[in-house]
């Protein structure tokens, strides 16, 4: 069983723009963005490798990781599936918080959105766009990527929250829990 999570309270970055609003976002410091028209419709469900992700609505559409706490519904969870990309590749710890107050770390590794290479960390390529948006033009020779990564929950019971890394190079578009079994 898969359970997509809403990231709506945490969305703090606009990484997708249309060609008529090229300067309307800024996935990185240079204002580059993904072309929204080449990605799933805003607010829809995108299935990547049998994992359904709630694709974000228009506007702020991803979480630039700054230690946000994402509540987890009750259940026994095996995996956290992560739809995301990084400004340069990065790996950092997600804190997994439990009902008894314990906290366990798990590695989250995410490849760079920019270079047109294979994933560095064995992720699934979720989307490869054909263009990159700059604030004042469309770059038709650059093909940014969004990756589907997964984070194991070594202790599956009693998880109440995930605390994302304090790492602004890491961007998360969607999270989906996978139940044990």
């Amino acid at each position, binding site marked *: 069983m898969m359970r997509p999570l809403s990231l709506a309270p945490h969305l703090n970055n606009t990484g997708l723009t249309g060609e008529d609003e090229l300067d309307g976002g800024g996935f990185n410091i240079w204002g580059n963005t993904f072309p929204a028209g080449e990605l799933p419709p805003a607010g829809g469900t995108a299935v990547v490798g049998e994992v359904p992700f709630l694709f974000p609505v228009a506007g702020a559409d991803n979480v630039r990781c700054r230690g946000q706490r994402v509540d987890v519904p009750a259940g026994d969870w095996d995996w956290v599936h992560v739809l995301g990309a990084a400004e340069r590749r990065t790996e950092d710890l997600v804190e997994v918080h439990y009902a008894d107050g314990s906290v*366990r770390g798990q*590695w989250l590794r995410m490849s760079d959105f920019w270079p047109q290479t294979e994933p560095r960390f*064995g*992720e*699934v390529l979720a989307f490869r766009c054909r263009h990159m948006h700059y604030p004042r033009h469309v770059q038709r020779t650059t093909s940014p990527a969004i990756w589907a990564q997964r984070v*194991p929950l*070594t202790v599956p019971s009693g998880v109440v929250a995930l605390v994302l890394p304090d790492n602004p190079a890491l961007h998360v578009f969607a999270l989906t829990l996978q139940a044990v*079994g």
Partner: protein
Amino acid sequence: MTAAQLTFSPCDLPLDGRLVEVGPGRYDWVHLHLSAPVGEAAVWLHYRDAVDPEFLRSLPGTPVARIGVPRRAELLAVELPVLPGVRLLGTALS
């Protein structure tokens, strides 16, 4: 898959930092039957093209630990932690 549903291949090895080979393949979990519960230790997953640290933790109240295998890549071996007095009694892959 729960620990009770697993069939462990028996062994008896010290946790002394050794490399334990697995049948090369793509897996979700490496399950370890240990001689005693382990709170937390680092293990290294050796893939064909990469080596990553991951966490080894026993399921609460049991001597069974499970290690997630995040990469969609061929796993070749698990580098065990150094934990004097703890032994590996069986492995299972899923």
